[in-house]
């Protein structure tokens, strides 16, 4: 006897839970033939603000976690993603990729997580300095996370792109509110399920689906967001972000690239972009 599939309801990921959008709105995602794939949540500005509240609460604790632990959590995400390989490949295919391309994107995503897991306790050694000042002081500069980062994830490479901008943000101790690819949002919520089984503390990563045009101004203007990462190349959107970000001197990072498959799309510089430099002085003369 034929069995009826049990379909997944795609919800948001906020504070380690999977709520529906508070607005109750949805958007139908369809395949090329027009068949319904899923109804995804159309997040509201209020959903974003709620996510900021939990991400802010989570930031201090996540920052305090040792870099070794952060590396192990990222590695755990890679393990969980690998274990769900088939699910993601199928989802990517449903969103229009060939099976070969889907497998490649999944594998690159896993490898990228492993790559950044390895950087967790090393990037500080690349970028920090001991500064030989012309007085009797010990003086050094270290990196510290910017804090709460809002990310507008790449529109293409809906899984690999998301992983490529998310991993360097969190391995550096930031917490994130991420808006998924508008046209291909499915993987983002499945990835949230991966995060939720990977020892990532609640609130460290929050994922919303919905319309960029609607959420972007809120992300860029929110006074409790320290930095905004925008993946895309729409001049009007970038201008808007810079204008609104000026209100609290938010740090702004633009990634205009269209795909994230190149070896140069991973480096410690992606981590560094979301770090502040703190310099400490202390006398050495007794």
């Amino acid at each position, binding site marked *: 006897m034929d069995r009826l599939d049990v379909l997944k309801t795609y919800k948001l990921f906020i504070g380690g839970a999977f709520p529906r959008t508070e607005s109750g709105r949805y958007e139908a995602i369809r395949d090329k033939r027009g068949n319904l794939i899923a109804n995804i949540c159309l997040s509201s500005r209020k959903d974003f603000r709620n996510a900021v509240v939990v991400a802010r609460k989570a930031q201090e604790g996540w920052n305090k976690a040792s870099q070794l632990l952060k590396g192990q959590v990222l590695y755990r995400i890679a393990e969980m993603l690998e274990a769900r390989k088939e699910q993601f490949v199928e989802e990517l295919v449903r969103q229009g990729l060939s099976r070969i391309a889907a497998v490649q994107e999944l594998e690159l995503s896993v490898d990228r997580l492993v790559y950044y897991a390895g950087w967790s306790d090393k990037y500080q050694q690349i970028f920090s300095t001991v500064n030989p000042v012309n007085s009797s*002081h010990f003086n050094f500069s270290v990196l510290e996370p910017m804090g709460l980062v809002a990310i507008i994830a790449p529109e293409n490479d809906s899984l690999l792109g998301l992983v490529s901008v998310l991993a360097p943000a969190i391995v550096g101790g930031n917490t994130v509110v991420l808006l998924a690819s508008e046209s291909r949002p499915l993987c983002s919520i499945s990835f949230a399920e991966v995060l939720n089984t990977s020892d990532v503390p609640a609130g460290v990563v929050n994922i919303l689906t919905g319309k960029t045009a609607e959420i972007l101004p809120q992300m860029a203007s929110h006074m409790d967001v320290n930095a905004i990462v925008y993946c895309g190349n729409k001049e009007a959107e*970038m*201008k808007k972000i810079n*204008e609104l970000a*000026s209100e609290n*001197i938010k740090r702004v990072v633009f990634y205009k690239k269209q795909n994230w498959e190149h070896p140069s799309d991973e480096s410690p510089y992606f981590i560094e972009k979301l770090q502040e*430099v703190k*310099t*400490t002085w202390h*006398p050495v003369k007794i």
Partner: protein
Amino acid sequence: MKDTTENVKFKAAWKYAPAPEATDHVQISSSYDLFINGQFVPPKNKVYFETTDPSNGKILAKVAMADKDDVDLAVSAAKIAFKSWSKIKPQERGKYIFRIARLIQERAREFAVIESMNGGKPIRESRDIDVPLAANHFFYYAGWSDKLAYAFPNRNPAPLGVVGQIIPWNFPLLMAAWKIAPALATGNTVVLKPAETTPLTALKLAELIQESGLPKGVVNIITGDGSTGAELVQHPDVAKIAFTGSTAVGKFIKKATAGTNKKLSLELGGKGANIIFEDAAIDQAVEGIVNAIFFNQGHVCCAGSRLFVQESVADQVIQKLKDRMSTLIVGNPLDKNTDIGAINSKKQLDTINRYIALGKKEGASIYQSECHLPEKGNWCPPTLFMEVSQSHKIVQEEIFGPVLTIQTFRTIAEVIEKANNTPYGLSAGVWTQNGAKIFHMTQKLNAGVVWANTFNKFDAASPFGGYKESGFGREGGLHGLKPYLKFD
């Protein structure tokens, strides 16, 4: 007051004879033009403005007011110069910058005197801090010119082009050095606009640069007011803006450059927390408090303008601070005995006085030392506000003068919360003899520069810059190269 505290009467012991620095070796022209393409050229509109000595109101010189056409001329000179400057052998580029450092050292005394005359800061500070640090900054970055590949491995660093630089009036020469030195070392060319009230040392630097043989157009220095700066910010051929000044103007610049490809670095305001624990070396901490807030009349973006004292030692610290304040000499900037010079401008004095009136109105208790103030000029006695809370405007907003607010605290968690409860994040200070407490605090304070058991120290090799609304980008050290480079 605790019994152990001795109210020391330093002042009663002796009187200071005046010890003014001579000005006869200093050359100030009666009028200055714009330094564009290696020449001093008159402004297109023939408009000049007067620059004065804030300690006595005397006019020192007339200075050109650059408008849009002049900015255009300077930017095109820099644009043409960029073609060759960015291509010359990096070591040769470095040698030019070394030469500038040496020339500043040779003329250090002249620069120090003019800095004090035009800006109002005590000669001891301009002589021992501003001018030597400016020379050191050129010396430091000169050496980087041919070593950039080591600073940024595998990234192929390249210069940006013409950089527009706008600097404030609190450290006129030093800020010019902070801006020009890394820009040149990385192969960029410069259009620099000094602050309206303090153009003279930058113009003397232009003379020095002319004498140094630096290729024409590599550095252009144009004087003017905010409108000149706005023209520079909006000029389409400027690849990058580096700005030091108020947070309000910084926000305006960020907004104005939105939608362009201009890179930006901002060094903006601050409201630094200076935290004294009960286990601090109290006498040293009191010196630290004085240095944190009264250095350069408090015209310091990273000033320790919010003092937090642990409750158990608050009475003792405040009494010792008052005693120490009674010895501070406010007066002639050129006198080597002077601790606190003139407020930079009438406008800034008005701002400070407005905040002092506001503090009284908000119900804070005020203490000002009974120092003698000269009759002419812009002066403000060192001022304390006690019995203030986080919600007071004088605690939240940058006053940029010798005005300190004092709050007490009981626990570490409490003081961290209070110290970080500000939109700014430039500097912070911690005073304790407990090592673990120092590192706990320096990690927890949201500030780009943290001084432990010291305050207001600067060095060419030490990165400086803020978190949050105090701006972004670093100046000084290896990290200070990055805002002037692009990478693969």
